[in-house]
C-alpha cells in the first residue's frame, strides 16, 4: 500500500452503508411510507381534479376574485393579466397542475408547521432540537434526497409534493416561532391577569397578534414550493416544471421559455395574493374583509336595495 496516497483507498464506505440501510428500510418499511402518501394523495387529487376539470374561465374568474378580495382592485387586474397570459401561451393545464401541487404543499406545511412553531415558541429545549433539523432540511441540496424519496415513495406528483414539503416547511415553522415569541409580554400577561387559560391566551391573544409574521412564513413557504417546481419535475412531476425540463432536454428553447414564464406569472399571482392575506386589519384601517373587494361590492349592492 502506498502510504503517501492513503486516500486512494475508500476507508469509510459511507455510500455503501447508506445504500444498505436504505435497501433495508425499503424492503421492510415501505408500507409505512406508502401510508404517509395517502393524505397527500387525497388532497392533491382533489385539488388537481377541481382545477383542471373545471372550465378554464371559471377558474380564472375565481383566481381574480380571490386576488381582488385579498389585495384590492390593482392586484385583481395584475392577476387577470398574468393568468390570461399563461392561458394564451398554452400553459394553462400545466399551470393548474403546478398550482395544485403548490397549494397541497402549503396546506400540509401550514397544518404541520404552525403547530410545530407554536410548540417551539413555548419550549426552548424543543426549539433547540428543532433548529438544526430545520437547518438541515433547508441546506441539503434537494437533489440529494430525490433518490431516497423515489425509493420510498416512488415517482409522480405525490412524491413531488413530499419533496417540496420537506424543502418548504422550515420558514413557516421559524416564523411562527418568531411571531409567537415577539408578542409583547404584557399583552400575554394581561390575558393571564384576566383569567385566561393557556389555551385561551394562545388562541385569543398570541396567535392573532403573531398572524402577520405567521403569514409571512406561509408566503415564504409558497415561494420555496414554487422554486422546487423544476427540480421535482426530475421525478416525473408534471406541470410547468416538466415543460422547462423537457425544453432543456431537447434544447427546445421555446418550450422552456413558456414553462419559465408560466412559473414567473404564477409566482407573481400567488406571492402578491398570499402577502396581502398577511396584512393585519389594523393596517387596512380596521375594515373587515367583507367590507372591501368583491364581497364589499356585493354587500353595497344588497344594502342599496
Amino acid at each position: 500500500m502506498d502510504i503517501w496516497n492513503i486516500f486512494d483507498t475508500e476507508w469509510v464506505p459511507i455510500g455503501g452503508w447508506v445504500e444498505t440501510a436504505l435497501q433495508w428500510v425499503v424492503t421492510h418499511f415501505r408500507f409505512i411510507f406508502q401510508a404517509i402518501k395517502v393524505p397527500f394523495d387525497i388532497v392533491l387529487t382533489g385539488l388537481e381534479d377541481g382545477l383542471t376539470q373545471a372550465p378554464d374561465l371559471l377558474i380564472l374568474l375565481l383566481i381574480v376574485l380571490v386576488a381582488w378580495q385579498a389585495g384590492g382592485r390593482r392586484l385583481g387586474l395584475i392577476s387577470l393579466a398574468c393568468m390570461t397570459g399563461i392561458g394564451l401561451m398554452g400553459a394553462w393545464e400545466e399551470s393548474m397542475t403546478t398550482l395544485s401541487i403548490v397549494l397541497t404543499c402549503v396546506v400540509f406545511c401550514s397544518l404541520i408547521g404552525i403547530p410545530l412553531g407554536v410548540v417551539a415558541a413555548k419550549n426552548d429545549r424543543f426549539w433547540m432540537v428543532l433548529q438544526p433539523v430545520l437547518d438541515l432540511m433547508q441546506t441539503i441540496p434537494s437533489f440529494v434526497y430525490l433518490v431516497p424519496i423515489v425509493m420510498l415513495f416512488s415517482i409522480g406528483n405525490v412524491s413531488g409534493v413530499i419533496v417540496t414539503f420537506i424543502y418548504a416547511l422550515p420558514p413557516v415553522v421559524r416564523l411562527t416561532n418568531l411571531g409567537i415569541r415577539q408578542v409583547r409580554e404584557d399583552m400575554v400577561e394581561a390575558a393571564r391577569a384576566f383569567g385566561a387559560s393557556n389555551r385561551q391566551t394562545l388562541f385569543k391573544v398570541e396567535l392573532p397578534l403573531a398572524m402577520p409574521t405567521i403569514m409571512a412564513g406561509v408566503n415564504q413557504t409558497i415561494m420555496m414550493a414554487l422554486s422546487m417546481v423544476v427540480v421535482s419535475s426530475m421525478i416525473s412531476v408534471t406541470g410547468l416544471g416538466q415543460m422547462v425540463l423537457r425544453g432543456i432536454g431537447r434544447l427546445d428553447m421555446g418550450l422552456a421559455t413558456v414553462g419559465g414564464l408560466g412559473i414567473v406569472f404564477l409566482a407573481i399571482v400567488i406571492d402578491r395574493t398570499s402577502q396581502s392575506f398577511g396584512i393585519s386589519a389594523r393596517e387596512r384601517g380596521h375594515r373587515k374583509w367583507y367590507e372591501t373587494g368583491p364581497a364589499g361590492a356585493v354587500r353595497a349592492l344588497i344594502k342599496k336595495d
Partner: protein
Amino acid sequence: MSEAQIECRDLWKVYGRRSDEAMRAVLSEGLSKEEVRDRFNCVLGVRDASFSVKKGEIFCIMGLSGSGKSTLVRHVNRLIEPTAGEIHVAGQRVDTMNEAGLRQLRAKTIGMVFQHMALWPHRTLGDNVGFGLEVRGVSANQRREASVRALEAMDLGGWIDHYPDQLSGGMQQRVGLARALAADPEILLMDEPFSALDPLIRRQLQDQFLNLSAQMDKTTLFITHDLDEAIRMGDHIAIMNDGEIVQIGTPEEIVTNPKDGYVAEFVKGISRVALVRAETIMDRLDGREVTAKQVGLGAELGDIIEHFMEDQSPVTVMSPDGPPVGQITIKAALTALRG
C-alpha cells in the same frame, strides 16, 4: 385580619434555578442580595415582605425601578409564584390555590391595570373590556352590556366599536381602567398606571380615579415610582428598596418621620404644606398662655403659616371638644416646613 382585603405575610421571591437552596441559605445565614447572586446565581426579587391592605383603601407601593414593586404586586394574583410566604386575598388563601380557582379569582375578584396599557390591538374596545367575562364564558349580550357600562363610567361610551390605536394615550388608559372594572372586582391592582402619560392627563386621571374609588369602595394596590403621586393617591404608602419594604405608613408619617436615610432622601423635595398637621408639630401647652390665634388638631401646615402673616406670636391648638392642648411657635412651623 378580618378587615384586611389583601394580606401578604413573609413573602419571598428568589429567581433562579437553585432558588430553594438559596432561600434556605438566606434564612439561615442572612445573605445579602450580592452574596445570593454570587453563591447561587439567583436574584432576590422580594425579600420578606409583609403588608396588609384594608377594605376600601388605596395602598401605594413606592420604589424606584428594580426595587421589586412590580414583582411584589404580581404575587397578589399570582402572576408570579412566591418562593415562600402567605398571600390572602378577599378571605381566600392565594398561594396554595389551584389553577382553576386562580383563574376564577383573576377573572372575578381582581382587576389589573398595566403601565403600557396592554390593550389588545386586534380587539375592539368592547372586546378588550369584556375579555375577562369572555374567558369565563359569559354570553355575548351580557358582555356587551358590561362593556358599555364600564366604558361609560370612563366617559368612553361611544367608542365601544373602535380599536385601541384610534385613541390617545390617556383614553387608552381609561380603557385599561374600564377593562379592570368590567367584572366589578373587589380589588384593583394598578401597576404604574399613569406613568406613561403626560403630566396634565396624569393629573386628570388621578382625580378621576380618586372620585371613582371614593364612590365604588374598591380596595386598590397602586404602584408608582413617583412619591408625589403616592402621597396624592395613597391612604398608606409602602416604600420599597432592593426587594425589601423599608417603611409602611400614612403619607404624613412617611414625610415627617422617615425611617432611614433612603426614605429621607425621597422625602426631601416633597412639599409639607398640605401634609403636616398641627397635631404632629405642636408642643404641649403646659400652662402657657392661650393666644387669640387658634387652630384645630387636624389643621394643615399651610393654614398654620397663614396665622403668622400678621405677627409672630404662637398659635394655640385646640382639641375637637374645646380645651386648648398645645401651641406652635413660628420656629416650629418653619422647621416643619423645611423638613
